[in-house]
């Protein structure tokens, strides 16, 4: 078998990981504040279709991505209002967001369905670095967002662990009553981080459309990666840096089916290979469920619990 193919597969895995990292960090920030947002898949779809439509209309890459972020913010704001202000069930509200986002992206995307992407995020060429054999194409042939995302994960990690607001954020997820007693508004911390998370998810969808997606198709564009991102949060133990490693691993399982198909390697039927990322994710979840692993994970203790001062 051609070794170039596997170099390309690794490179693609790292590239796809960009979307997973963005969405996962978005979910981590949200969940660290104690809010669980299951709407990731819906926000990714809306981000993707927005990037496509705006790109189609303006041919301006940056404006298209900016609008994806705005749409992500808007959808996360709906979730925040429902779950924080109106204290709706977070699980059901997130699911409603997925259904709404799936429907709306399909509705507004109908006129452009099957059309190829209007603008493209171009990979960078990093001079000599990109020319190093094997390592060059795998690590140094990506677009600017891939590298920004890595930096973003690092910044996010520092924010969580080394800054005052990060400490407040972690406390809000673990012991909101304490934060409230300190005079900090729990609702405000949760609002800000849910919306920040939504912005990252929107960008994740927009980037995926313009960098990886070839044509808009509601059924095929994100194809469940929002749910994989949610599992990645558990895999990464709510820590942004670990999300990078997890995302590359999951990106690999997402990419392998296409490589095998492209190379016409028919060890397994394509439909069976397509199950691979989901089965792998499931296995990881199972492995992380053992009592020992759970101790090490450290999920936010009040995840999914609304905070009401009177009911404390």
């Amino acid at each position, binding site marked *: 078998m051609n070794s170039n193919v596997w170099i390309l597969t690794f490179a693609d895995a790292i590239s796809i990981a960009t979307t997973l990292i963005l969405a996962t960090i978005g979910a981590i920030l949200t969940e660290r504040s104690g809010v669980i947002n299951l709407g990731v898949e819906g926000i990714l779809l809306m981000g993707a279709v927005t990037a496509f439509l705006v790109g189609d209309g303006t041919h301006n890459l940056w404006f298209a991505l900016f609008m994806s972020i705005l749409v992500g913010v808007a959808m996360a704001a709906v979730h925040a209002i429902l779950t924080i202000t109106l204290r709706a069930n977070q699980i059901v509200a997130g699911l*409603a967001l997925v259904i709404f986002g799936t429907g709306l992206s399909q509705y507004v995307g109908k006129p452009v369905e099957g059309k190829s992407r209007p603008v493209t995020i171009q990979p960078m060429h990093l001079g000599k670095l990109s020319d190093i054999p094997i390592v060059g194409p795998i690590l140094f042939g990506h677009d600017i967002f891939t590298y920004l995302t890595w930096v973003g994960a690092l910044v996010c990690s520092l924010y969580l662990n080394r800054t005052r607001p990060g400490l407040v954020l972690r406390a809000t997820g673990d012991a909101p009553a304490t934060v409230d007693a300190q005079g900090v508004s729990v609702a405000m911390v949760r609002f800000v981080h849910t919306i920040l998370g939504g912005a990252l998810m929107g960008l994740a969808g927009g980037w995926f459309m313009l960098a990886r997606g070839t044509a808009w198709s509601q059924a095929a564009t994100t194809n469940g990666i929002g*749910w994989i991102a949610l599992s990645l949060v558990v895999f990464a133990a709510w820590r942004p840096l670990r999300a990078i490693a997890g995302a590359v691993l999951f990106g690999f399982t997402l990419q392998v089916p296409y490589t095998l198909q492209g190379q016409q390697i028919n060890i397994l039927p394509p*439909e069976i290979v397509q199950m691979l990322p989901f089965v792998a994710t499931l296995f990881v979840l199972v492995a992380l469920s053992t009592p020992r692993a759970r101790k090490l994970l450290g999920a936010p203790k009040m995840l999914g619990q609304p905070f009401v001062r009177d009911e404390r």
Partner: protein
Amino acid sequence: MIIGNFRIELEPRLTSPKWLYAAVPAGSLVFAFIVGGVFLALTGHSPIGTYSSLISHGYTSTKGITNTLGLATPLICTGLAAAFAFRMNLFNIGEEGQMYLGMIGSAWAGIALAGHMPHVLAVLTVLIVGAAAGALWVLLPAVLRAKLGTSEIVSTLLLNYVALNLVNYFIFGSRGFFRDPTTSFPQGRGVEETARFHSFGNSNTYPTVIIAVLLAVALYWFMKRSNFGYETSVFADSPNTARYAGMNSTKLTLSVLLFSGALAGLAGAMYVVGPAGKVDPGLLQIGLGYAGIVVAALARYNFVAVVLTAILFAGLRVGGASLQISSNPVPIAIAVVLQGSVLLFALGGEIFRRNRLRIRRVQQVSVAS
């Protein structure tokens, strides 16, 4: 919250008046239609014209309402499946995949077992095998949840994608048991004639609709009267109380999730004995499993209300499909947009049922220095 001179407060209600239970969903429906109307208007469609066409094609014409009842049949089952699990705070969101497995299992029974059986027995066997297949598909997440406490939300959902590829594999990827061997066109192998219901008259409504409605009523009654129903409601309100009272939470979790999976599997089986008669990839396009969750949430997990909500949603879908055939076609996805919005508004509206909104004038207090 204070705005200007007014303080807006939410005061918990001890009891909610009966009319609010109906007013919140009805209000959500109105608001959802307004949101849908905005998107319709923005994309150059007349909201009034679209909605009146949707209502006539979905509900008020004879053909419309029979189509709607036909589609509502499996949707009632997935709605019951979601309601059954969600009531106990077990968030099985894998109805979609469990329904596919129900379709596969019942098609297998309809081909392999139904051959020499009398009609009623054959149909019954097919339905039961379908339900069993649905339960089997939720077995792994159920055991993980009951034994290790793994969140069932993501695990049930991931299996939806596995089930989807499984159906595609049986029909498009292989020439195996489920594929019709007589044509090169990829389609499912038909089940025995004895394993299929005839529709009422010339309509698309099948006798399975009666089974689905009876099932809803039976469940309503069972969960109100039985020991099992009582235990699940205690467990839902307070898992600790249930445990102190000696209730077996592992057993409850397992049985609730498995039964929920069986109900979702039954939806797929009803699709086979009714309109499909084979493993039909068309089911993958309608999203009845996900819609079942919306139906259940909107019905506030009340089994009888699930029936009404399922008919309402099926009508949106049927009416939505008819909108695609016109001079200015409206994408069918408008039905999903409406479904999602209804649920979002209903969730938001819940707080006004549980709390009373009080707006008071704030007395300006001057601080003596």
